[in-house]
Each structure stands twice: as C-alpha cells, then as structure tokens.
C-alpha cells in the first residue's frame, strides 16, 4: 500500500519535531490547525466558531503535551486522528453537557469523523486515484486545473453533457468516501 501524501509529509515533520526542530514543528502545528479548523467548523456549524477554535487549541495542546506517545515506527495520521477524535467526543460530553440531544449529535459527528475526511485537503491525489481513469482525468482538468467543461470535452473527445455527468459522478464518489451523505436517494 502506498502511503498518502499527508502521511509522508506530516510524519516527516513530526520526526523532525521530536528531534527538536522548531521550524518543522511550527509548520506541522500550522498545518494541523488549518485542517482541524476547516473540519470542525464545517461540522459544528458556523455559529460555533469559538467552539471550533477552543477545540483546535485543546487538540494541539494534547499533541504537544503527549507527543511522547507517538511511536516513530507507526503512522502519524492515525495517531493524530485519534487524539482529535477523542477531544471532539470529550468536547460534547463536557460542554454539550446534560442534554441527550447534544450528546447524540456529538456521537453522530464523531462517527462521521473519519481519518480520510480530516486529511482530505492534503490527500486530493489519493482520493482521485481511487476513481476510474476517465473521471479522474476530467476532475483534474476541471476541478483542479480550472478548465471549463467545454474545453475538457474537446480535449477528451466526449460530448459536454457526458463530461458534466462524469464529473458529477466523480464528485459524488469522492463525497461518499469522505462520509458526506450528499447522495440524492
């Protein structure tokens, strides 16, 4: 199994950090913060910005204080993800407090909280690689390189309608892998 982009990058930074490299550590923390902020904000809703920021700080603090528990031989993303998940659940148990509804909501968010989804921004390549070659190429051209569907249609020799359908399917397939239930029926 090939290692994902995020795993290689983040593990490299973590190993340097454990050896005391401050620049690497700063870069690692900034990447992790941005990943978490984007993720928690999306899940907690826009009115919970403060919550998301507090939560991010708690996770980073845990990463810092408990970095001794990272095993250099094992994947970094799995280690970090479990800390982030633990803190998310803890957040709902502690702050969500007594109401069952909030605990249930927390459980639901935690259940949807997947390693793939957290590292998605770093792992576009890995996600695309899981799609059929035709869809992958179209998504690269339209969603990443920024071409129009018309241009992509000419380039691949398909009708524009087919290109649109193909891209739509590709996006839905990625959504499913990330655990977003955006399937219409």
């Amino acid at each position, binding site marked *: 199994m090939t290692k994902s982009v995020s795993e290689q990058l983040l593990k490299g930074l973590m190993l340097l950090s454990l050896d005391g490299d401050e620049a690497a550590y*700063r870069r690692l923390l900034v990447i992790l913060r941005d990943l978490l902020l984007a993720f928690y904000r999306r899940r907690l809703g826009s009115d919970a910005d403060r919550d998301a920021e507090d939560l991010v700080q708690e996770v980073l603090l845990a990463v810092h204080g408990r970095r001794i528990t990272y095993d250099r031989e094992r994947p970094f993303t799995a280690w970090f993800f479990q800390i982030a998940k633990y803190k998310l659940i803890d957040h709902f148990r502690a702050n969500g407090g007594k109401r069952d509804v909030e605990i249930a909501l927390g459980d639901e968010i935690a259940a949807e909280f997947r390693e793939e989804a957290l590292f998605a921004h770093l792992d576009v390549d890995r996600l695309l690689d899981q799609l059929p070659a035709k869809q992958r190429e179209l998504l690269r051209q339209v969603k990443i390189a920024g071409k129009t569907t018309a241009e992509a249609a000419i380039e691949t020799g398909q009708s524009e309608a087919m290109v649109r359908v193909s891209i739509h399917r590709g996006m839905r397939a990625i959504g499913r892998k990330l655990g977003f239930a955006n399937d219409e029926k």
Partner: protein
Amino acid sequence: MTKNDEFIEALVSDLTPVRPHALRMRLALAIVVGVVGAAVALLISLTFRPHLHHVTVAAFWVKFLYTVILMSATVVALERVARPEGSIGRMVQVLALAFGVVVLLAIVQLGLSPASSYPGLIIGFSASFCPFLIVAFGIPSFCANMWFLRRAAPTRPALAGFVAGACAGGVGGWVYSWACVENGIPFIAIWYTLGILLSGVVGSLVGKVSLRW
C-alpha cells in the same frame, strides 16, 4: 487568528526533543518501581510470618512462570493502550492460554493425588487472604502504572485502567509467589487468577474516572 498564532508560537518555544523509546523507558521505570514496591511489601509481611513451610519445586515454578507470563502480556498491552491509536492486541488470548495451561496442570495434579488431599490443594490454608495480598502487593505497581498512563494518551480509560490493574496484579502475584507456601496447582489456578482479576477490575473502575485528559 493572531491569538491562534501566539498559541502555536508558545507551543513551539516550549519544544524539547523526545528521545526514541521515551515512552517505553518510562514504562520500564514504572514496572521497576512496582516490583521494588511489592518486594518491600513482601519483606514487611515476612516479619509477620517467620516460619516458612516446605514448597515443592514444581509448585514454585508454576506460580513463578504463570505470574511472569501474565505480567509480561499485560506490560506489552500497557505500552500499546497508552497510545491514542493503540489496541491491546493479543493480550486476552495470551492470558487465556496461560490460564488454560495452568488449569490443565491443576487437573493432572488432582488426578494424581488422593481425594483426601484435595482441600489442601484447592483451598490450602491461605485461600481466604491470598487474592487480597496479591492485590495489596500490587498497589505500588498500580500507582506507578497510573502515573505512567496519566502522562500518556489512552483513549479508552476503562480498558487502560483494567490493563494497568491486571499488570499490577501480575507484579504483585509474581513477587508474592517468591514466598507463597501453597503446593496446589488448583490453588494457583483459582486464587492467583482471582487476585489478578480483582486487581484488574479495580483498575478499570479507577481508570474510568481518573484517566481522562
């Protein structure tokens, strides 16, 4: 954002290198402290029990090896369960296998012995306090294990507490076996196992409330 950046800067300025296997070294320290603590408890208890009975070589080694295996399996599991993504691995299977072997040996011993000796082999004279002494001897080890876990990152507190407790029971049982006067393998299978299990259950309860972070 600036507040967040300051936060990251604060963490960066607090960065100190972590040596490879730092967590394992810490665990090793906890285990050594636990063994020494149990040995001290044993020495103290010997002053209350000056005359030693005769123990057969076989019984001594069964006790010794059984507890060493339980201790080793739980130490390995403890190292793993201390990490956020860690699982206990094959601990349960190893413990069950060790228990199975001792039960088998116990049945063999009972088969070879006259029925009149059964009370001695099963209850002995220390059954009423043996499990509790094993738990008591394990207390220093349990404290050391909890110290270790509270600075680690276990994401399943009750399970981590159970492993810490069972490990303490293993340490306590091992040291206790050095001067245990029983000759019955059935005795070991029942009362040693109960003591270690009891220690694990207590650990699980303590872990559930005290291993949050």
